[in-house]
């Protein structure tokens, strides 16, 4: 079993769901990343997504767009982010999240090798569907990296079949038609999507997009195996991390989110 899937299983055995959190590599400064990862772990994150900054993030809303842009403005390059990751201690599985061009340009093999060397367990590419992922799936399988695909409320049954067949680690259920970002929602579409996925796979299913408070996490964990929190963390880091001054506040925030995965 992959380390990512194992993290979900461990939660399951403890009678809780998984908390997946997202940070942008390089926002705040790349040098802060190891400290941030440590704080996220201390708060109770079960899986961490590391966003690789991209100039044209079409699947992202204002928070992650701005975060990605700040990282690029600082001169952060995705492969440098991997190098920093390699030196960052931690037990929680890490997934890189981003866009295909970041993986294509260094070359699939080379990117995969550097991701492995960085201790990464898998990837989520927001602009790649299972059909277009063929070569990346082959390379990832060879190296033992998981390929996480997104399932959407608009996905047909045939497409969900494909997503679960080619997905590894977990299935990322997108809570709504839309981009990443905070927002009020009822998770009605998410619930239906998760049940459609559930009948197709034993892989864990985590819901993401628009989950920005413990109540959202609680709502989603009623029916899914985990919740993904991104924009909330990214905005917090931008405003309050301040070289580590906001560390305790971050740990407390993640702890509250994690507690909401246990309330079911």
């Amino acid at each position: 079993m992959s380390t990512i899937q194992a993290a979900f299983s461990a939660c399951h055995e403890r009678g809780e769901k998984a908390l997946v959190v997202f940070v942008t590599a390089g926002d705040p400064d790349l040098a802060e990343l190891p400290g941030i990862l440590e704080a996220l772990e201390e708060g109770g994150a079960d899986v961490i997504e590391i966003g690789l900054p991209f100039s044209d993030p079409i699947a992202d809303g204002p928070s992650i767009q701005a975060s990605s842009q700040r990282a690029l403005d600082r001169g952060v390059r995705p492969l440098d982010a991997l190098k920093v990751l390699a030196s960052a201690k931690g037990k929680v599985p890490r997934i890189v999240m981003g866009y295909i061009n970041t993986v294509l340009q260094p070359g699939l093999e080379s990117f995969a090798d550097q991701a492995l060397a960085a201790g990464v367990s898998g990837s989520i590419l927001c602009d790649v569907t299972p059909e277009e992922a063929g070569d990346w799936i082959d390379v990832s399988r060879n190296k033992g990296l998981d390929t996480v695909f997104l399932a959407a409320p608009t996905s047909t049954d045939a497409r969900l079949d494909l997503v679960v067949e080619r997905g590894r680690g977990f299935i990322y259920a997108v809570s709504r038609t839309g981009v990443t970002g905070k927002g009020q929602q009822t998770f009605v579409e998410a619930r239906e999507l998760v049940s459609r996925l559930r009948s197709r796979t034993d892989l864990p299913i985590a819901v993401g997009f628009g989950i920005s408070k413990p109540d959202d996490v609680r709502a989603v964990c009623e029916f899914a195996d985990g919740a993904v929190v991104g924009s909330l963390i990214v905005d917090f880091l931008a405003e309050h991390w301040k070289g580590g001054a906001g560390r305790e506040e971050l740990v407390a925030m993640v702890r509250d989110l994690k507690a909401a995965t246990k309330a079911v």
Partner: protein
Amino acid sequence: MMTSPDARGRFGQFGGRFVPETLIPALDQLENEFNQAWSEDAFRREFATLLSEYVGRPTPITEARRISEATGLHVVMKREDLNHTGAHKINNALGQALLARRMGKTRIIAETGAGQHGVATATVCALFGLKCVVYMGEEDCRRQSLNVFRMKLMGAEVVPVSSGTKTLKDALNEAMRDWVTNVRDTHYIIGTAAGPHPYPFMVREFQRVIGDEARSQYLERYGRLPEVGIACVGGGSNAIGFFAAFYGDPDVRLLGVEAGGLGVSSGSHAAPLTAGTPGVLHGSYSYMMQDEAGQVLPTHSMSAGLDYPGVGAEHSHLMASGRATYRAANDDEALDAFRRVAELEGIIPAFESAHAFVPVFDGSLEPGTRVLVNLSGRGDKDMGMAVDLLKL
């Protein structure tokens, strides 16, 4: 030679569909609807009738006598500047609006750079009574304020885009995000032959009326075909619609002209085929301007409609296969061509279209060559900048 994309939407190795999962069903629906409609006589007739009665097609070809005299070439122009709204963009906007109506989509979104495609889209939305939202970079809104007003006058909402470089590529990003969010009732009319499959193919088919007309008009008028066909290339829609008619005529050389900006060696340009590398931008694998990490590079051209870091997938394929060749023309060369076309023919071309005339004026073609240039649009929109650039 291969003229339609394969089942995965690829022209050779280029093209495909690199978009969030949420959009795939909409792209599938669009592809099916387009293929169905395009095979129906009734749809083709409705499209052709609107092109004729609303857009004013067929546009003529015009022999450029004084340009020919001045250059020693034989130059003929395809007059897309005479279309309603002033450019070729309306051919595609009209075709896609018809499709949107068939699919029951009530809301249309579009991106625009210079504003030509935005105006064309606002126009067809007014014609069909569809709600229209146009994304336009903040910087472009400022540069092209008259077109912003035109769109508003026809009832469209214009949303200034302040992310990224605040220009066309960012407007496209924002339109994609809107589409991901509102995909159930919204159709996205991409204004060029780029984007995920089926856009590059569909846009070519809606624009091929340019080449089909020009080819038969030229044959009828001159009893033969031209030796060279030239078009400017932004995202590549006017060029691909023009080129497509000549795929079966190997003796007709096809030449695409990209925006060289301040010169391709300066880095300030918008010439992905001439000076870029393949990668994924806006849902498609094609040549683009990027750094070694795959980040999209800023572009520069005095022509807002060519100021785009990517290019339609089929152009990458035509370049790879050698069927078409591509070069760049710099701002100063295009400005010079702009002025000479005006002086010699009494026709003011769009800055974009002026790029297509640069090979005519720069002595790069053999004397006597029979050239057909696609004059993709008229220059009214560029008067403000021309006043600043040309001290007359």
